[in-house]
């Protein structure tokens, strides 16, 4: 039982699940996408990225790349939300919700890739 590997995997998959949870639901219905879930997704994605830093060379670099992509998109989603509500006073319109959810969807794909890499790393014999 490798504790380190368990925690590593835990954070990566938690990042994916929270992201998915935020993403799922009607595309432009704000009632289906909770801002706190977005917040949790961002925090856990950041934690997952920190865990991936300094990992082994071969898979570590690609994992880090996927993490960077996911974080970029999620933070962009948060920024879109903030600017819509507080800065430009547009309010929560369906278009705004649509943009937010699209960005979150992109981040989710990156997290999926990351998870697949994690699985293959653990089930394929390393060279």
């Amino acid at each position, binding site marked *: 039982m490798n504790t380190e590997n368990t925690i590593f995997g835990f954070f990566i998959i938690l990042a994916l699940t929270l992201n998915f949870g935020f993403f799922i639901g009607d595309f432009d219905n704000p009632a289906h996408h909770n*801002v*706190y879930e977005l*917040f949790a997704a961002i*925090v856990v994605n*950041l*934690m997952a990225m*920190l*865990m991936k*830093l*300094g990992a082994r060379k071969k898979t570590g*670099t690609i994992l880090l790349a996927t993490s960077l992509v996911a974080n970029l998109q999620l933070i962009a989603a948060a920024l879109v939300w*903030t600017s819509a*509500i*507080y800065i430009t006073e547009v309010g929560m319109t369906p278009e705004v919700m649509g943009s937010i959810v699209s960005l979150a969807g992109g981040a989710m794909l990156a997290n999926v890739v990351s998870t697949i890499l994690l699985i293959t790393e653990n089930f394929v014999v390393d060279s």
Partner: protein
Amino acid sequence: MNPITIFFIRRMRMPLMVLLMAYTISIIGLVLVPGVEVDGEPWRMGLFHAIYFVSFMATTIGLGEIPYPLSDGQRLWVMFSIYISVIAWLYAIGSILALFQDPKFRRALIRSRFKSTVAKIRDPYYIICGYGNVGSSLVHLLTERHTHVVVIDNDQECIDRLDMEAYDLDVPALCADASAMDVLIDAGLLHDKQGKGRKSTCVGIIALTSSDEVNLKASIISKTLRPDLPVISRVEDLKIEQSMEMFEVDHIVDPIDTFANLLSLVLKAPSLHLLRDWLTGDAGSDLTDPLYPPDGSWILCGYGRFGRELHERLIQADKQVTVIEESPLDVPEGVNLLQGTATNLGVLSDSGIRNAVGIVIGTNSDEVNLTIIRAAYLLNPNLFVVVRQNHRESERLFANEAIDLLLETNDIIARRIRMLLSTRLLYEFIQYSRRQDAQWANVVISRLCAVMEGDPPHLPHLWSIYAKSNDVPGVYEALKKGRDICLSDLFQDPRKKTRTLSCVPLLLVRGKSEYYMPDDSMLIEVNDHILFCGSKRIESIMSKNCRNIYALNHLMRGENIPDGYLWRWLQRRRNDYDRRTNPR
């Protein structure tokens, strides 16, 4: 990713994680704890305001309680948040600082910076292993000639000294073991112009460390990885010297061997030795005086490696030698040996020192050598004294005594390597001079004396001229046009036509033929390589003459060729008119 970045990231993982957790906890708390609006209405901070508040709270900026004054519940939570977030920040910043102080990190940083600096050198450069006295004088020599150098030395103090010197060029230096292959590779050993469009080339490696084994290892690595690269190595032990010969090291500089050759030269022809001394010394330093070792019997103190070599040379020069040695080992037949301590006056007088003309003192202890000098002078004040100085620090002690010929290891090595690194012509000239006789040397010396500058005169400066298009375009153009230029044309003084610049042409190389001490009226051809001797000032005047065809023409003919299209056209018209009106 390079090792430095990986190192940094790994160290910063924990602090960044702690920081993230602190921020998250504070934000969540602020979002949950209820606040109060101005008119008493309950109000909750949204995510946006919570993040904003935590941002300026954690970095201790503390802008204020926005947008409404905080309720007491909120204040309690903020108190808790302040402590955890500020401490998290301090932990993160402290880790960064500790990381930069970490010697492993700093070493890795220095090494990586060294490697990239070396890779960026655009010109050909030398690698020098060992930065002692010889190393620093060589670096000085090479940087003055605008040749790049890379230095490796195992002692941090030496590298510090190098950093503080003001050389004409930047000298990348690394404190590392020069016998390690990865160190040499980082220093650019494999940089070869032919490979992968690289711009920098390593053109030689000079192994000068005080350890023969390190020099051997560095030479072996160099010859194995780059067989074409010239290797100059310093060595003192005979066995290691033989190993180096196996690996075909290009130039093995053995101070004892070199000194023994010097002694032979002094004994055979003092003027030859003087000439060599003058030409291989530091340009600009004081002239050395000639040495005249007298004829007669010699005493040799100390029969180690040094003693053996010199004994052999003395015998070759048909001198009678008595050897004094404390604990003789493997003394061959026919050697006139007296066992005893040479510092003992009784032993010395037993050896016949009162009737001897010269003494060679070669033990490996400076104190013993100094004592023997004193003792010898007591018994015979007219001795020709040849001494070996072992350590550089004893310089002043030896300078205090009246010594005729002093072997100082570093000086010998420096001279030899300086000659090897100098223009190839000088090396040829010195080799040639060895085979000449005293009369030839006297002629050369008298010509040199005529051109030396300074009061008192100092050692001359040597330079060479290559009659190629890019080196001396003036001369090249003139030769291409079919004009005759002789040597004396090159050193006419441009300021006063009848005067000549005080310099001496020592050697002219044309293809495979060499002309030593060429005559002034000799004609120059394209691709001739000429070695001159004079002073730096004269060199710059001469190079100005040679580069500019107009200056050269003015020198040779005293006429000004017109410059520019207009004047040349006018000149041509004038020439045509002359030809038409005065047919010859």
